[in-house]
């Protein structure tokens, strides 16, 4: 279980998070929606300390960490319990597809090399890219890179995988294949927090939808509650703009 309490973050005078609280149960797929600049990505990045929050508490498993003043040990511990999928893939450019996956296992999690390679091959097979194991990221398409990014996250066997707009850098054509991969992770029962603009994906997969705007959580609920019967006016406005009218009818 993961819980965030009252996370705050400002970049200069611009308050991006104005006290966000969030609870993610084991096996949950939490989708965070919201317009650009609403703080979704910042929230996600504060969760594994890629961004340092100004205040707030993170509870992950049995560990409670101050989001503003974590110790180095806590930062590492939290990062080793989480995995992150980047918008622009974030693959190590100097490592092959296989090494991209084994790197974190061998170096950070001290998994024996042979075991790490076996695990990596397993996840590469699962995303359908085993034949690309010795290719460098520069030799792969965006969709392939992102599948490897996701495979890397899954191989780490984390308590939660954080997805930061995993499809927004891809061609429309490739979005589907990535969403399919993410849906398969959801079926495995892995806990996920997904920031996305893919409404259909949110509807199909989310066990919980969170709508954020201007640094606060405006509304949260099941996907049916949010999409079919939003309580807040701001949520309704947002959905009306995002989803084509015929879809609502």
């Amino acid at each position, binding site marked *: 279980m993961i819980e965030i309490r009252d996370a705050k973050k400002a970049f200069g005078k611009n308050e991006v998070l104005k006290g966000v609280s969030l609870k993610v149960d084991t096996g949950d797929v939490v989708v965070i929606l919201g317009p650009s600049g609403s703080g979704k990505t910042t929230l996600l990045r504060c969760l*594994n*300390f*890629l961004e340092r929050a100004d205040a707030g508490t993170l509870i992950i498993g049995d560990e409670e960490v101050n989001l503003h003043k974590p110790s180095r040990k806590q930062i*590492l511990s939290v*990062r*080793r319990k*989480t*995995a*992150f999928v*980047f918008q*622009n893939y*974030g*693959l*190590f*450019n*100097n*490592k*092959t597809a296989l090494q991209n996956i084994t*790197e*974190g296992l061998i*170096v*950070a*999690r001290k998994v024996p090399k042979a075991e790490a390679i076996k695990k990596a091959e397993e996840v590469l097979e699962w995303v359908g890219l085993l034949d690309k194991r010795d*290719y*460098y*990221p*520069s*030799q792969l398409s965006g969709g392939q890179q992102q599948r490897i990014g996701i495979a*890397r996250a899954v191989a*780490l066997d984390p308590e939660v995988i954080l997805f930061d707009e995993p499809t927004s850098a891809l061609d429309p054509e490739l979005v589907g294949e990535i969403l399919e991969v993410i849906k398969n992770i959801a079926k495995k029962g892995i806990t996920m927090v997904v920031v996305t603009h893919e409404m259909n994906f949110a509807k199909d997969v989310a066990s919980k939808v969170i709508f954020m705007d201007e640094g606060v959580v405006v509304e949260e609920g099941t996907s049916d509650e949010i999409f079919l019967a939003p309580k807040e006016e701001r949520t309704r406005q947002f959905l009306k703009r995002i989803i084509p009218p015929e879809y609502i009818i």
Partner: protein
Amino acid sequence: MGDFFKWSRVWEYFPKILSKFPITLEIVLGSFAIGLVLGSIIALIKINKIPVLCQLGSIYISYIRGTPILVQLFIAYYGIPVFVNSVLHIDVNGWDKMVYVYMAYGFNQAGFLAEIIRGAIISVDAVQTEAGYSVGMTGAQTFFRIVLPQATRIALPPMGTTFITLFRSTALAYMLGIMDIMGKAKNLGVTTFHTLEGYVDATIIFVITSIILEQIFNLLNKRLDYGKGRVVKQRKEVAAK
């Protein structure tokens, strides 16, 4: 041309001048090593913006890049003994001239390499570091396993250029009385009154070595391309079809 220039003398001097090639090589390798260590330190100081040291680093780089190597050689040769004697109270009388040559060229390289290294490290995309953190690596692990190899790749071509420039600029070391390629050529000229032949030999040695060095760096570049060359090759093959 009369007796002023004879090819026979070019052949006669060549082995004598070539025998001093190891001295030149020693200066190049020694100074490059000093430059690499010192340059890396200055680069890290500048990247981490360590106060005072960072500004001193900038001044140092301006001095190195803004003054001729000849001036730096003389400053090292005449200035360092004064400094070491009066400030550090160490007797420099027994020091070999080569020490000053290493210092002058090493400090010179440090200035140029610092900027190359700094530029290369900061040009590695921030997401590479973030990705390293996100899989649970420490800062040091991320730097040495992910950022540094990529930065090395970026720094390699400009480093090759400075290396070859350094090789050529060592020709000035003879001004301090070092018997390297240039020193020997000059020396032969003085003793035999036939100066030109020695310089022709030096030219040949410098040109050939520069070409070889260039080839070595090209090879290194291709070796360390992390798959980019293969992509280009694949595309060319596709285009050819």
